[in-house]
């Protein structure tokens, strides 16, 4: 029996003890149990696959019957909607996503917030120019921008004081201050986020 006081345990002893914990294993049938739970289900479609389905739907030939009056009305509505969008929403300056960047839309449901901004690694954690737009009818705050491919950390800053992580983000990381940052992974081309 080791009678040495435990307060004398050296870091080397602890490291050795920790290494021994590496032998713990869930058992040989673990993988079989996981595969049993997965069953015959296929992985859920990711953003890229959904996009592929949209492209497929859009490119699929189909016949549409439109009456002349209905066609004119639909065209007028479309023009009106586009006009309103560019007037109110702005979008990007020249109407297109800058080269090398992917469009990204941040959304936060915060009906009682007075002001919400996105701060993150892509804007130096500053709110200037990153205030989100509110839709009072839905309580949703949105901001569309363009970001380069890669991993971006961010949070929503509510009413200028309260950082809120994005509940819709699949990933988050420790911010080093006892809280967490949401992580957005922007892929090339389609702006898909994990």
């Amino acid at each position, binding site marked *: 029996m080791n009678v040495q006081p*435990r307060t004398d345990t050296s870091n080397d002893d602890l490291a050795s003890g920790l*290494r021994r914990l590496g032998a*713990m294993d869930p058992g040989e049938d673990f*993988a079989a149990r996981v595969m049993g739970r997965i069953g015959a289900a296929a992985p859920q479609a990711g953003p890229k696959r959904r996009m592929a389905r949209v492209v497929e739907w859009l490119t699929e030939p189909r016949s549409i019957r439109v009456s002349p009056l209905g066609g004119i009305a639909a065209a007028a509505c479309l023009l009106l909607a586009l006009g309103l969008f560019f007037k109110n929403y702005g979008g990007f300056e020249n109407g297109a996503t800058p080269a090398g960047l992917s469009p990204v839309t941040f959304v936060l449901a915060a009906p009682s917030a007075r002001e919400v901004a996105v701060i993150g690694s892509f804007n130096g954690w500053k709110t200037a120019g990153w205030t989100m737009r509110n839709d009072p009818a839905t309580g949703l705050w949105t901001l569309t921008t363009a970001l380069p491919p890669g991993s971006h950390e961010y949070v929503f800053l509510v009413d200028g004081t309260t950082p809120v992580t994005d509940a819709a983000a699949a990933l*988050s990381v420790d911010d080093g201050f006892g809280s967490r940052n949401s992580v957005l*992974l922007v892929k090339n081309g389609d702006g898909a986020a994990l």
Partner: protein
Amino acid sequence: MDKPDNDRDDAMAVERTLSGEREAFAVLVRRYQGPVYRLMLRFSRDEHEACEMAQDAFVRAYERLASYDQRRRFFTWLYTLALNLARDRARRVAREPLYRQDLEQTHADPRHDPLANLEAARILDALRGLSPKYAEALALRYIEDMPLDAVAETLGVSMSGAKMRVHRALNMLRELYGKEGTP
């Protein structure tokens, strides 16, 4: 773990899983079941609960596999997902005190002598007393035997940040371990 060859194998296994070859995912489960299980042990009360949580993590990883960015290391993605799952659960479930008897039973392993099992249980108990930020740094460095750069990548911190965390965590663990073992 996490050598370039493994990364290529992982990427291939992910591709094959996504293309409908379900068994390819079992390769990934076998490869990473140890680290994920041991991660869950640090957030659970016993090995049965840890095993359930580890299974949950792999099932979730399978469901979300299409959203995995293959430019990243698979293990980093999987570990982050599992860690988030464990933290969510820890927030939901109020932790009950761990009974020494449970720990001794949990880690009783006929291949090792009883004293070694007891020591392992005590170290794990002390590790549970650290905040996840420090416990995970120690676990990756020593339990999973990862080099510091891989620890830094997995935790999303710089090399020096990882080194500092491991160093501080080891000192904190020594203090906890000493208190825990003092009569």
